[in-house]
């Protein structure tokens, strides 16, 4: 801070003082509302989730199967070729255990999130999702095998959260 700033009169306002009636403040809530077009890829992906299936798109040139599906291959820059169902089982690529919710409130039960490479998709391609909250975070590990736990059909709305979470795949 410059010498000059030290001479500025007054004190820093505390939160309570900012909210006090005699403080001059302005409030503005942006009116920013969107309804994005699903388009071809999003729409089919979400419709298939509602059906209890995970679908991707295959690129014949590089041979990759992209999940979530895209109508174009970013590697080859060409239109992808066909729809391919992948399995709802996979392997943890990476994971984290969050002790904050979306509004940065500290939470007692941590949220387990993982990127799961799906069986049938190409290596390093899969889904970002929750891991069963009953799993002890200490038991999580990269390479862990998981399987989707779907919400009951009537509760599915065409959303990534139509899968409730992924749970450890029981051996055998």
């Amino acid at each position, binding site marked *: 801070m410059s010498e000059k700033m030290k001479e500025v009169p007054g004190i820093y306002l505390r939160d309570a003082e900012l909210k006090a009636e005699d403080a001059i403040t*302005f409030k503005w809530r942006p009116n*920013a509302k*969107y*309804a994005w*077009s699903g*388009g071809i*890829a999003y729409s089919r992906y979400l419709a298939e989730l509602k059906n209890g299936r995970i679908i991707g798109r295959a690129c014949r040139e590089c041979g990759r199967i992209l999940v979530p599906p895209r109508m174009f291959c*970013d590697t080859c820059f060409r239109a992808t070729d066909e729809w391919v169902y992948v399995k709802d089982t996979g392997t943890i690529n990476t994971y984290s255990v969050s002790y904050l919710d979306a509004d940065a409130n500290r939470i007692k039960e941590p949220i387990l999130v993982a990127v799961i490479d799906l069986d049938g998709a190409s290596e390093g391609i899969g889904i970002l999702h929750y891991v069963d909250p009953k799993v002890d975070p200490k038991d999580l590990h990269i390479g862990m095998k998981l399987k989707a736990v779907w919400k009951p059909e009537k509760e599915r709305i065409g959303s990534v959260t139509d899968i409730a979470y992924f749970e450890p795949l029981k051996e055998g």
Partner: protein
Amino acid sequence: MKEVLFMTVAVVGVGYTDFRSTTPDVSFKEQMFEAAAKAYQDAGVHPRKDIGSFITGAEDYWEGYSIFDEFVPDQLGATLRPVCTISGDGLQALLTGAMQVKTGLMDVVAVESHSAASDLLSFHGIVSHGLDPVYNRNMNVNPFFVAGLEMRKYLSETKASREQCARVVTKNKLNAMDNPLAAYPAVMSIEEVMKSEMVSNPLTRRDISPLADGAIVMVLASEKKAKELSENPIWLKGMSWISETPWLESRDWSDATYARLSSEKAFKMADITNPQKQLDLVEVDDWFSYKELQHLEAIGVCEKGQAGKLLEQGQFDRDGDTPVNVSGGRLGAGNLLEASSLQSVLECVIQLRGHAGKRQIKGAHTAAAQSWRGVPTATGSMLVLSNEK
């Protein structure tokens, strides 16, 4: 300064979707991919090996995404390559691309801009968000009052009439009838424009360009590369962009100073001393009807106060001395938000290539595209293009 005056960058490829009032069937990414694939095909380049840099002109609030640059590489073929977003209109992005070519670091640059306006449920809310939060936002008026204030001052100073403004709308919508890409072609009467609902007096609903969706991609190349790639490169001859003060309380409400200054600079670079004579066609921003007249005067196509009269005499018609917004402009082709300025450039390129079909301006060899970023801004750009180097 001297060496900057000599431009050697050309447009060697253009690609676009058609423009539509709504696009529920495709995402903005799928639209961008369509435009990009066509532009690369037109230029004869492959983005994965031939293009050195990718630039989009986009504004996060229109998109509803923060850090929008992160959402563009895949559909442009730009992953693992230099990518940036210019938080400005498509023409500002194109000028940035031209400068990148001029550095010599890249021979070929792709420039993209699009509109997903139909995804935006609160268009007026986003425009209001551009007002000063302390002095202006809490007045709780629809933000088009800014255009009403400007239109009033412009009409008062120039003695242009409401009817002349309405004629801008009918001309541009009629021009759009011959532009297969246009979203809002119409044969509309001046009475219909004049009698439409008042929005912010003297501005009526039909004075305002209707929103549309669409994507446009252009490929720029250095002189050497342009000659290799293209039989008909369209050369960028002069360019400039200007921002005025944002203060609504103390701006020049009658003149579009940003348009005057940016055109003066661009015309100097392009050796345009008499725009009315030397420009074969002009695309100017017509977000609101009166803006076309104001912009034509600001860029020196005619004297201040003359645009309305000349319009009535047919001088700005497609077969007039200086055809203006042959594409239909925002009023006829559709308001593509940040992409409308690239739509203006697109029309110039198509015309200068001689590919405009029914709406072709015969013998066109020099054209100008002028942009404005809409209310509440006083920011605009100018680009002069030619099919002769």
